[in-house]
C-alpha cells in the first residue's frame, strides 16, 4: 500500500477504481521481475528488488500529468512500464507507484507520405510494423523482440536491433515526443503536434536520450513520433510451416544468405564492403547457438540435440563468425546487381555457406521469419531458465568490433570452463552495421543459473573483467549497454568517458527536484558518493 491514504484516494479518483490497485494480488505480478535477479541483485529472493505500493493505469496524458503532480505532492516515487520486459520499467524504492501504460495503446497517426507514425506507449513494434507494412513501410524493431514497446526504446532506453542496416537505432528515430516531466508539466516537440517539425533550436531530446536513455528516470513519455522505413516486401508475407516455429516464404524480390567467415577480421572486411555499396537490407551476426535456439529448434531439447550434432560433426568451432545478409530489390535489375556484388564480396573475404549441409530450406524460411517478425529473442529466457544478460554492447567501427569479438570469446571460454556461463563455445556476438556506415553494434548474450549465487558472482566478475579490459583497450565505444551491473558500468564509464555523472545528477535535480521519477537505471550505484565527488577530469582526460 501507499504510505499516504490521501494520495491513494486522489490517485484512484484520477483513473477510476478499475484502474488503480493496492491489492497484493495485483502488485505481486509487477513485483516478479526476472531481471532484478541479475540487475546487481544476486539474491535468491526476487522480492528484495521491488517494493511496490500500488499500480495505476492511466488512459491519457492528462491523467499521467495529474499522477505526476500527486506523486510530487506526496513524495511517491513512480515509474512507467509498458510490456514490462526487463527491469527497466520497475520502480525500486519501497512504496513506489508502478504506472502501467497499457491503456495508452493507440496508433494515433500513421503518416505514410512523410514516413512516420505517432504512437502511445503500449503500441508494440510488431503492431506498428504490421500496420506500416500495409503502406510499404516498417519500423525499427529492437533486439529484445517485437512484442516490446516502440515508445520505450525510442524515448527511454537502448534501441539496437538487427534491422539496423536499414532502420537505424531507435535513439535516432525520434521525430517528436510528448514528455510529462517528473513535476507534471508536459513538453511537446516535433511531429507529435501538427506543424512542428524539428527541434526548438537545441536538440531537446539530447537531455534524456543519448545511447542508453533515462529509463524513466526523467518522467514519462506519452507519445512519440517515430520514423518509419521502406519495406520492400509484400504487405503480408506467406507463412509456411507450423504455428510453433513458422517460416516466411522469402518474397521473389528478396534473398537470404547465411554466411560463415574465416575470421572476425574477414567478417569486418565484408561488413565494410557491404555498407559501402549499400546493398544489404539486413546484415547481422548471430552467434552459432542462436541458430538451434531460435529457428532450427523449438525447445531446449531440440537445441541441445542439434548442438551436440554440430559438435560431433566438428562444426562448432568452425562456425563462429557468422553473418546473415538479406538483400532486396525493387526491380529485377536491382536485385541482380546486389546479388552480383554480394557474391564478389563473399569471394573476396573467403565466406562460405554457414552450416552448409545442415541448414535446410525450412530453417532458412524460419530464419527469415525471425528476422522480419523478430519474435524469437525471448527464447533466450529458455536457455537461461527465465533470465538472460547481455554482456558488453556498444557501438564502434568494425575493425574494433572484430578485435572485441576475439577477446570476449577468449574471456567467455574461461568462465565456461569454470562452470559459470552456459557453454556457447565462447561465441555469443550478436551485432551488425548501423545505417550502411562503418559503425556497428555488438553485444554478447550470456547465460548462467541466476538462482546460484556463485554463478551470479562469477557472472558479475566476467562483466567487470570485460568492461575493465574494454576500457583499457579503448574499446568502449559510446558506452556499454550492459545494465545488469549498471552501477559498476556507470562508475567505470563515467571515469573513462568524460566524467559526465555530475551532469546527469544536475539534470535530475533540475527536472525532478523532489526525486519522484525512479532513477535506478538512470543514476545507478553510488549516487550519493558521486554527488559529492570532485571532478576527476584532470586525471582521466588526456589533454593536448
Amino acid at each position, binding site marked *: 500500500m501507499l504510505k499516504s491514504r490521501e494520495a491513494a484516494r486522489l490517485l484512484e479518483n484520477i483513473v477510476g477504481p478499475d484502474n488503480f490497485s493496492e491489492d497484493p494480488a495485483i502488485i505481486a505480478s509487477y513485483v516478479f521481475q526476472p531481471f532484478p535477479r541479475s540487475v546487481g541483485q544476486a539474491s535468491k529472493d526476487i522480492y528484495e528488488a521491488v517494493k511496490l505500493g500500488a499500480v495505476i*493505469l492511466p488512459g491519457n496524458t492528462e491523467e499521467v500529468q495529474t499522477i505526476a503532480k500527486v506523486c510530487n505532492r506526496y513524495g511517491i516515487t513512480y515509474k512507467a512500464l509498458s510490456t514490462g520486459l526487463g527491469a527497466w520499467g520497475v520502480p525500486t524504492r519501497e512504496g513506489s507507484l508502478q504506472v502501467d501504460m497499457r491503456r495508452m495503446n493507440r496508433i494515433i497517426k500513421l503518416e505514410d507520405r512523410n514516413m512516420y507514425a505517432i504512437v502511445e506507449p503500449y503500441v508494440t513494434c510488431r503492431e506498428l510494423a504490421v500496420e506500416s507494412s500495409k503502406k510499404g513501410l516498417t519500423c525499427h524493431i529492437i533486439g529484445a523482440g517485437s512484442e516490446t514497446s516502440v515508445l520505450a526504446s525510442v524515448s527511454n532506453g537502448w534501441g539496437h536491433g538487427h534491422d539496423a542496416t536499414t532502420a537505424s537505432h531507435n535513439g535516432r528515430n525520434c521525430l517528436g515526443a510528448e514528455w510529462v516531466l517528473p513535476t507534471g508539466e508536459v513538453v511537446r516537440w516535433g511531429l507529435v503536434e501538427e506543424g512542428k517539425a524539428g527541434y526548438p533550436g537545441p536538440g531537446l531530446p539530447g537531455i534524456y536520450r543519448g545511447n542508453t536513455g533515462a529509463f524513466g528516470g526523467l518522467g514519462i513519455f506519452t507519445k512519440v513520433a517515430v520514423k518509419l522505413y521502406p519495406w520492400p516486401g509484400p504487405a503480408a508475407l506467406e507463412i509456411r510451416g507450423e504455428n510453433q516455429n513458422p517460416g516466411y516464404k522469402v518474397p521473389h524480390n528478396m534473398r537470404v544468405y547465411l554466411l560463415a567467415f574465416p575470421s572476425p577480421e574477414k567478417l569486418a572486411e565484408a561488413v565494410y564492403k557491404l555498407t559501402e555499396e549499400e546493398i544489404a537490407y539486413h546484415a547481422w551476426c548471430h552467434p552459432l547457438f542462436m541458430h538451434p535456439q531460435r529457428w532450427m529448434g523449438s525447445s531446449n531439447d531440440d537445441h541441445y540435440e542439434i548442438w551436440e550434432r554440430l559438435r560431433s560433426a566438428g562444426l562448432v568451432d568452425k562456425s563462429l563468425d557468422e553473418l546473415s545478409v538479406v538483400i532486396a530489390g525493387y526491380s529485377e535489375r536491382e536485385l541482380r546487381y546486389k546479388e552480383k556484388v554480394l557474391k564478389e564480396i563473399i569471394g573476396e573475404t573467403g565466406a562460405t555457406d554457414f552450416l552448409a549441409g545442415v541448414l535446410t530450406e525450412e530453417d532458412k524460411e524460419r530464419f527469415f*521469419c525471425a528476422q522480419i517478425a523478430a519474435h524469437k529473442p525471448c527464447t533466450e529466457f529458455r536457455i537461461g531458465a527465465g533470465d538472460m544478460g547481455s554482456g558488453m554492447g556498444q557501438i564502434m567501427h568494425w575493425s574494433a568490433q572484430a578485435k572485441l569479438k576475439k577477446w570476449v570469446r577468449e574471456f567467455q571460454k574461461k568462465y565456461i570452463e569454470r562452470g559459470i556461463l552456459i557453454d556457447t563455445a565462447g561465441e555469443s556476438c550478436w551485432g551488425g552495421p548501423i545505417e550502411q556506415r562503418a559503425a556497428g553494434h555488438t553485444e554478447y548474450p550470456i547465460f548462467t543459473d541466476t538462482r546460484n549465487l556463485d554463478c551470479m558472482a562469477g557472472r558479475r566478475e566476467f562483466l567487470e573483467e570485460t568492461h575493465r579490459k574494454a576500457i583499457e583497450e579503448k574499446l568502449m565505444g559510446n558506452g556499454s549497454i550492459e545494465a545488469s551491473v549498471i552501477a559498476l558500468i556507470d562508475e567505470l564509464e563515467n571515469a573513462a568517458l568524460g566524467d559526465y555523472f555530475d551532469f546527469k545528477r544536475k539534470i535530475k535535480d533540475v527536472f525532478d527536484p523532489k526525486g519522484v521519477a525512479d532513477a535506478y537505471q538512470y543514476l545507478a550505484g553510488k549516487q550519493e558518493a558521486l554527488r559529492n565527488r570532485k571532478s576527476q577530469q584532470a586525471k582521466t582526460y588526456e589533454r593536448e
Partner: protein
Amino acid sequence: MFKKLDDYEQELYWCGRCSYCKFVNIPFMKSHRFSQTCPSIKDQNFHAYSCSGKLNVAWSFLKGRIPYSDKLLDVIYRCPLDGACDTNCRVIMGNMISNNEILHALRVKFVEDGQILPEHMALIDGLRKEGNVFGYPKTKRSDWAEGLGLKDATREKVDILFHSGCRLAYDEELRNVVTESAILLRDAGIDLGIAGREEVCCGLRAFDIGLRGEMEKYAEGVASVVRESGAITLVTPCADCYSAFKYYYPWIGVKLNVEVLHITEYLDRLMKEGKLKFRKKITMRITYHDPCHLGRLGEAYEPWNGEWKKVLGHMYVSEPRKPLRTGERGVYESPRNILRSLPGLELVEMERNRVNSWCCGAGAGVLEAFPDFAHRTAMERIEEAKASGAEALVTSCPWCERNFKDSVKESGGKFPVYDIVELLKEVR
C-alpha cells in the same frame, strides 16, 4: 498425471515476462486492432490478468506472500482458460512451462482451501444433484433424441457412442445441432447409440473451476458408459466434451480406450468416403470461429513424468523428452473442409484463426461468474467477424454459439451465428 501447484514451482520461476502470452503469435499478427490474444488482460489491463501475471501471482502465493482475497480470486478466475497463452508460451519457452496445467492446479488448490466463487456454487449444485451444469432434471437429458430412433447404448452394443453434452442436451434453441448431428450419422448408415438419461456430464466445467474430484468422478462415469456400450468410437458435437475426452481425461489419468472424434471430424470423414453429400446451395459469406476446446485444447494429451537436468553448464533439458504441446494437432481443418464443400458458401478467415483463435469468453466458469466479461469477449469476436467481411459467424461449439448469440442480442445488434451442423441441415 495431475500435479499439485507446488510441483510447478520451478516452472513458475522460469517465466521471463516476455508478454508473448498477451499477443497473437507474432508472425501471424495482421493488425493492431486484432493483435491481442488474452481476453483477461484485454479486459482488465493489469498484468496480473495475463498468464504471465497469473504465474507471477502463483509464485507469490506459493511463497505465502499474498493471502487469499477477493482480488486474488478475481485474478485467477476471471479467465476462460482458453489455452492461447499456453500455445504462445511454447513458441518462446518450448516445453518448459505448462501454463494450462498450472492455471488449473491453482484453481484446484483454491477449492481445496475452500476458496470458491459463490457464482460457481449453482454450477456445482446442479452437477451434484442432476449430473449437469444447469441443474436441469437428469430425466430430461435425452429429450432431444425423441423420435430419432437411436439405439440405447446402455442396453445394446454400438459401434459409435454419441455423447450430446450438457449444453446441447438442454438448450432448446440449439437443439437443431444435436438432433441434426445424430440424424446425419444415422442416415449415413452409422451404427450409433446414446446413453440417454445415463449420459453423464464430461466434468470439464467442474475441473475448470477447480473441482478435480468431481472431474475424476464424471470421467470415470463416462469411461464406464463407454465400456458398457462396447463402442470403438466416441463422437460428440460438443467441443468442451471433446477436449475433456482428448486432453483432460488423459491428463488426470482416465483412459477411455476408444477413438474420440468431434462431429465435424466424423462428418468430414464421411464426406471424403462419399457417404454424405450436400447438393442444395446456400449463398452466404461466412467466417469460422475455432472453438478453444476443439482447437488448441483439442490436441491430445501426452503424459510426461520426467525431470529437468542441466546440460552445457546450466541449460535445462527434459529427460525423457517432454512432449511439446503446440495446440496445432487440434481440429481445425475438418470444419473448414465441410464448409468449403457446401455449394454457394464463401468462407473468409478472421485474422485470429486456428491456433491463434480468440476465445468466445464462455469457458471455465467465466459465463457464470463474470457474464459482463464473457459478453465483452464475445463481442470482440463478433467485431472481428464483421471486419472479415463475413455476413455470419459459424462455429462448432454450443458454448461458443450460445455466448455469441446472447451477446449479439444483448448488444441490440444483429449478426447471425450458426453451428456448422445447422448449416448442414439447410443444405441436406
